[in-house]
């Protein structure tokens, strides 16, 4: 199949090319994969289950803070801290989810309540000395692979590549499973899903747990890669928006949507910044315009548009 061949070539390129790239491209590629990963993570809940979270920063921040605090205070390897953060985030996701779902919050109400949860965590983090308050936490760079610290960018690239591919494979497995069908049903029509025997609350919570777990792993990657976290960088609304943007533009509720979204959006942003340099704001203005146009003319995202042709 042609699609499969294209996929394999792309994968081979992603694995083989980076060592040959200039630093800038490697840096951008890491961003692309990182956003793609966040998008895939968001997609499980937002795309497949149709629960439009605007507060995934909550999980991202929990992941980043858990692994970093465990590392700095108790010398626990972030590889382990990453899993701990994921579990904690999933726990918080289940808590926040069961509250909102049980009370029947849907659509914009769910979006707003998740936004509020993330903002509350941000305000708490800003005001808590024990987690570094606004001074944040920094991880000194050094080479210690057992501690998720590498010399140079390339190893991080392969880590995030593996994470992003893992998220894609997991999403594909979900899509083809009973859970995937159930989530689709929930997204399309919750009443009809219930009538057809789908335990909609349990399905939404399952999606929430998976999505928040994955997002938290992204938080740990961020902390290790950039070496510094603070409340606004991790719990701020920008993180939530980044994830969902890739998914929506690429195609929410499709396996490759967030990947495609990120591989299109990030270069657009980089190119427009390069082209409009020296005119502060022009590039983000263009980005906003592109967003409006994409949603107006490709309401199902790039992948959706491609499929419908």
């Amino acid at each position, binding site marked *: 199949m042609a699609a499969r061949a294209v996929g394999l070539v792309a994968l081979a390129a992603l694995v083989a090319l980076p060592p040959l790239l200039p630093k800038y491209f490697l840096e951008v590629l890491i961003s692309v994969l990182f956003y793609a990963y966040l998008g895939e993570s968001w997609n499980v809940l937002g795309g497949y289950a149709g629960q439009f979270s605007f507060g995934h920063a909550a999980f991202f921040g929990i992941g980043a803070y858990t692994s970093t605090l465990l590392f700095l205070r108790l010398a626990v390897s972030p590889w382990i801290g990453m899993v701990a953060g994921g579990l904690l985030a999933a726990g918080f996701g289940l808590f926040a989810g069961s509250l909102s779902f049980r009370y029947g919050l849907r659509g914009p109400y769910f979006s707003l309540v998740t936004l509020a949860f993330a903002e509350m965590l941000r305000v708490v983090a800003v005001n808590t000395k024990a987690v570094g308050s606004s001074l944040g936490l920094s991880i000194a760079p050094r080479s210690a692979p057992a501690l998720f610290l590498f010399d140079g960018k390339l190893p991080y690239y392969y880590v995030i590549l593996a994470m992003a591919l893992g998220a894609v494979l997991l999403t594909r497995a979900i899509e*083809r*499973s*009973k859970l995937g*069908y*159930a989530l*689709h*049903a929930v*997204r*399309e*029509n919750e*009443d*009809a*899903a*219930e*009538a*057809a*025997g*789908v*335990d*909609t*609350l349990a399905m939404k919570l399952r999606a929430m747990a998976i999505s928040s777990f994955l997002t938290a792993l992204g938080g740990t990657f961020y902390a290790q890669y950039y070496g510094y976290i603070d409340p606004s960088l991790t719990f701020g609304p920008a993180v939530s928006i980044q994830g969902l943007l890739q998914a929506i533009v690429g195609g929410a509720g499709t396996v490759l949507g967030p990947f495609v979204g990120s591989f299109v959006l990030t270069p657009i942003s980089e190119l427009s910044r390069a082209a409009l340099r020296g005119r502060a704001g022009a590039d983000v203005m263009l980005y906003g315009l592109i967003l409006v146009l994409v949603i107006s003319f490709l309401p199902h995202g790039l992948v959706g548009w491609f499929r419908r042709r």
Partner: protein
Amino acid sequence: MSDLLRVRGLTKRFGGLVAVNRLDLDVGAGEIVGLIGPNGAGKTTAFHVISGFHVPSAGEIVFKGASVVGQKPHAICRRGLARTFQIVQPFAGLTALENVMIGAFNRTGDVAEGRAHAREVLDFVGLGSHRDAPARTLTLADRKRLEMARALATQPELLLLDEVMSGLNPTEIDQIVGLLRTIHARGVAILLIEHVMRAVMALSHRLVVLHHGEKIAQGPPGEVARDRRVIDAYLGESA
């Protein structure tokens, strides 16, 4: 004949409005019961309560010997009580086959098995050729069939059908009547709300008539049709 569904004193209030008032209703195994009454009589509300979408204000609902009051719709469905909606609610973005697979997953966790069963059911209701069409592209008649197929795929013992014939032309209605007979022949009991009198009279073993939320008559179709109160209720509506 043992009762499959036994409803006693079922009452549903919305604020000050009583939509269903002390309803008693039985459906036996393998029985077809028609639930009729003028618009606003409380039929659909009764369905919502029985299938778990609303919690009853008072009363008892026993299905297969155990109370289902307070259970969620999906749990009731798993026990063998499936329903359709008055306004069809397909999963518009999914294909016909996928729609039915959702129902089939009640009886199997295996995707291939669920798909195979869904195909059978689609063929059974006569939608086999539309298997891969997105639900939103189907005609109204086909969407009604799809909705029945989705309910059937859950392998119910009792099927609650809410106006599956409204909006259809006479040929289509005849087809649905035929389909319902086949379903019944397979041992599924049916409780149906219907305004197409010709069809209800032909299908039902028993009729239950609701008016202003209360049961005003029940019995074999022929008897009920001659009931003075029933005639008044319907005349009152049209007057």
